[in-house]
């Protein structure tokens, strides 16, 4: 595949980077990335990946656009209220860049569909809004050996980590168990400054692009913590847990489970 004149022009600021070049841009155009959630994080992640020319973007979300989403979910707009988020995002991303094909799935992710959904993608991005989904996505990515870029936000705080199964830690090495329901508030209960979804989502998109290009370091065995009020980024080390129930040599979790019991979703 050769880049067209339009593509050379569209991606010229990428192509001029020695770390990208025409070769790297072609890798981006051939990449397939699956995004869990078309909300606060899914919007900026998808937006930047679409602009970058990621050829295939899969997105799953079962919700429709609501007025209270628009303070941060920048792929949607006032006239899209009531429209499925994945349809709204598809229209936004494909009109930004015709090189991009968005495959929207209007469903909830579950132990029964996740492996089929992600198996043909190169990289998975977690922008979900609840713990059961985060553990499910982690376990599936470990089992299928899919790189996973995980991001989370609350109030003025963000967390980002990159999971490379077989090489580094997984989400269960980081947090062994999910908190019992009610102990950690959701954004709906606790609020979130809209712009930090952009900071965290752009960090996730950057991790994805570096993975596609094979350039630089990623947040393997590290957690990046962003504190917006103190304008502070901290990185802490996340060793692989030799007793991890899912990614160790002798895992106790070998089949996917749904972890929803007792959890209410937003």
């Amino acid at each position: 595949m050769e880049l067209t004149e339009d593509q050379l022009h569209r991606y010229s600021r990428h192509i001029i980077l020695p770390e990208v070049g025409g070769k790297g841009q072609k890798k981006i155009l051939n990449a397939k990335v699956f995004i869990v959630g078309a909300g606060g994080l899914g919007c900026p992640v998808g937006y930047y990946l679409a602009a970058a020319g990621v050829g295939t973007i899969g997105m799953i979300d079962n919700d429709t656009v609501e007025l209270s989403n628009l303070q941060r979910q920048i792929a949607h707009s006032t006239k899209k209220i009531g429209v499925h988020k994945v349809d709204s995002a598809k229209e936004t991303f494909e009109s930004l860049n015709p090189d991009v094909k968005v495959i929207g799935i209007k469903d909830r992710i579950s132990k029964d569909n996740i492996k089929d959904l992600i198996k043909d993608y190169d990289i998975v991005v977690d922008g979900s809004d609840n713990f059961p989904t985060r553990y499910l996505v982690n376990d599936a990515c470990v089992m299928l050996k899919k790189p996973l870029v995980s991001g989370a936000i609350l109030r003025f705080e963000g967390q980002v980590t990159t999971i490379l199964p077989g090489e580094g830690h997984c989400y269960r090495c980081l947090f062994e168990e999910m908190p019992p329901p009610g102990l950690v508030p959701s954004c709906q209960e606790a609020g979130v400054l809209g712009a930090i979804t952009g900071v965290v989502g752009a960090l996730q998109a950057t991790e994805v692009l570096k993975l596609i290009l094979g350039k630089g370091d990623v947040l393997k065995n590290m957690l990046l913590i962003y504190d917006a009020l103190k304008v502070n980024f901290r990185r802490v080390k996340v060793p692989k847990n030799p007793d991890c129930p899912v990614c160790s040599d002798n895992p106790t979790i070998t089949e996917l489970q749904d972890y929803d019991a007792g959890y209410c979703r937003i």
Partner: protein
Amino acid sequence: MAVKVRIPTPLQRLTQGKEEVEGKAGTVIELINDLEAKYPGIAERISEGGKVRRFVNVYVNEEDIRFLQAEQTPVKDGDEVSIVPAIAGGK
């Protein structure tokens, strides 16, 4: 000088909104008990029966205490301790 402790967003309610507080040197569990004396209720959010909860991580200068000496990990003046619970927001 004391130990600097970074308090995560969900627990700042217990520290009058402060995201950084000071604590006494010793071990991690002694530090948590020292915080409890100043900010009642905080210890049980971080630990249970003298053990740090499994969805909360404690880092002493970037190192996860689970891979050091767990609750007995020493902390000295000037160290920076981060309490990091899992958060899940994305929408």
